């Protein structure tokens, strides 16, 4: 059974209105603004070589390692996790709404909004080097595509987290802090356990610090096709698992007084 056009439009409209509420926009937009400021500040270094490195770091560590997973987590939780906790999802699912189509539609809306919220940071990243007359890495032009792909992968991953864990937001934050940020900083293959390392690899930023002797010693490039495949497979598997889990999920089972 598929979602009818009218149902899809209605669900998309109400969900977008829910997501675009000022309360829900403030935190991700604030984070995006912070990254935008960091990107602009990084190119104001007096030494052009240093500025190049600082800029790459700002992009890699702040945008790919923090902003992108954070806003993805924020909106992925809104797909079902928040409503599961509040109990309001029951109203929708007591209607003749097919579950898989419902989840897919909301995940799509969450992805779109997560991408849009990154726009200030993305604009700063794309414009700042030109303002400072920095030689722009050709891969920087691909930043938009990497943002679209990376956000999709993160949204799918955190959607799965929201369905598996009761406190999905907290689990997601731990993942961002420990895996995406800390492990992603580790040079070499170990760092590729973090998705952001693959995103940085696609942008040619993964080895931006190779001038550092330690990093150079551990330098271990991965073909960009491999990074692309990793991101696509992780995203697709997470989405598939989310659809399967949600189709069989008992929404009321965890809340019944009789179960306590």
């Amino acid at each position: 059974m598929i979602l009818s056009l009218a149902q899809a439009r209605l669900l998309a409209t109400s969900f977008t209105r829910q997501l675009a509420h000022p309360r829900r926009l403030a935190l991700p937009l604030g984070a995006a603004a912070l990254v935008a400021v960091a990107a602009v500040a990084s190119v104001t270094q007096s030494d052009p070589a240093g500025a190049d490195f600082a800029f790459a770091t700002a992009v890699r560590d702040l945008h790919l390692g923090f902003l992108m997973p954070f806003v993805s987590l924020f909106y992925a939780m809104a797909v079902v996790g928040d409503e599961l906790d509040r109990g309001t999802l029951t109203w929708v699912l007591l209607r003749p709404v097919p579950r898989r189509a419902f989840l897919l539609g909301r995940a799509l809306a969450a992805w779109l909004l997560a991408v849009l919220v990154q726009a200030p940071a993305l604009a700063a990243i794309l414009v700042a080097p030109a303002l400072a007359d920095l030689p722009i890495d050709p891969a920087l032009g691909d930043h938009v595509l990497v943002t679209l792909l990376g956000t999709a992968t993160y949204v799918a991953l955190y959607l799965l987290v929201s369905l598996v864990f009761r406190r999905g937001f907290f689990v997601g934050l731990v993942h961002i802090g420990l895996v995406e940020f800390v492990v992603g900083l580790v040079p070499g293959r170990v760092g590729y356990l973090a998705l952001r390392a693959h995103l940085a690899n696609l942008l040619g930023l993964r080895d931006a610090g190779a001038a550092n002797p330690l990093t150079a010693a551990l330098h271990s490039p991965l073909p960009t096709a491999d990074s692309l495949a990793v991101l696509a497979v992780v995203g697709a598997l997470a989405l598939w698992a989310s659809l399967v889990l949600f189709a069989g999920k008992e929404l009321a089972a965890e809340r019944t007084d009789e179960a306590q």
Partner: protein
Amino acid sequence: MTAAPPVIDAQGVTRLYGRFMALNEVTVRMDGGVLGLLGPNGAGKSTFMKLVTGQIRPTSGRLTVLGHAPFTAPALRRHLGVVPELDAFYEDMTGRQFVAWLLRLAEFTPADAAARAAAALDEVGLTPHADKPIARYSKGMRQKTKLAQAVAHDPRLLVLDEPLTGADPISRRDILAAIRRRVDAGTAVLMSSHVLYEIEALTRDILLIHRGRILAEGNIEDLRALMDTRPRRLFVTADRPRELGAALAADPAVAGLDFRDASTLVIHASAPDAVYDALPRAARALGVRVTGLTSPDDSLEHVFNLLLEGR
């Protein structure tokens, strides 16, 4: 022509939550009308309701609603109207918006949804408050909103999980009247409650559920008769309880007497109906002023204990 499937057909349905057995081998068949599901809190009523409405699956056994397995048949929900136990709403929506939005999700056109929402809100007596945000609704108004969304699409089966909980007397009257109208129009109703008189107001057919098992099913009069023939304690508050006790002591229907405090006589009645007759006669004859008459054994819990004793 094949016969219409039963409204609810549960065969040996068991539901576990981890190691906790919420329902144990429940077999129920409902062909229409109103079925009252009675049981104390935690008896398994809500679990049964959630199974019927497809919110959860049976651990074992077979359950069909209008011929469909509820968990796996979203199309069945077109024919179900559900008042769930939950009290979570989209608080910033008005009652009208909420009901109309849920109708649109069931694929009614905007105009049809608006008209049906208005009619349903009127049916439950919520029209004057229909355009206020749900966040500002009282408990009774929230219960009415739940009922309005449940009836708005003219379902074949209404599943009402404690629909009168928290409602004030006027809301209760409105809610019961709306349910009765639906019953008269031919809608099947499964309603749960832990309060006997709430169910009595709607139906004679009851299903008693306790600790996940069906304890008894049948007519509510049988239950009343059982309550009236079993010994019961009656607490009588009067200005001269000792004199009243002395007058009643010889009555064969009185098995014993004691005093809870200076103004409360406790009668252990072996035949409660006979005591209910004798008590006003004795009070009138002595000129004793009776200000209260209660029985802790009138509770549903007591009924369950009686039934369990009889097993």
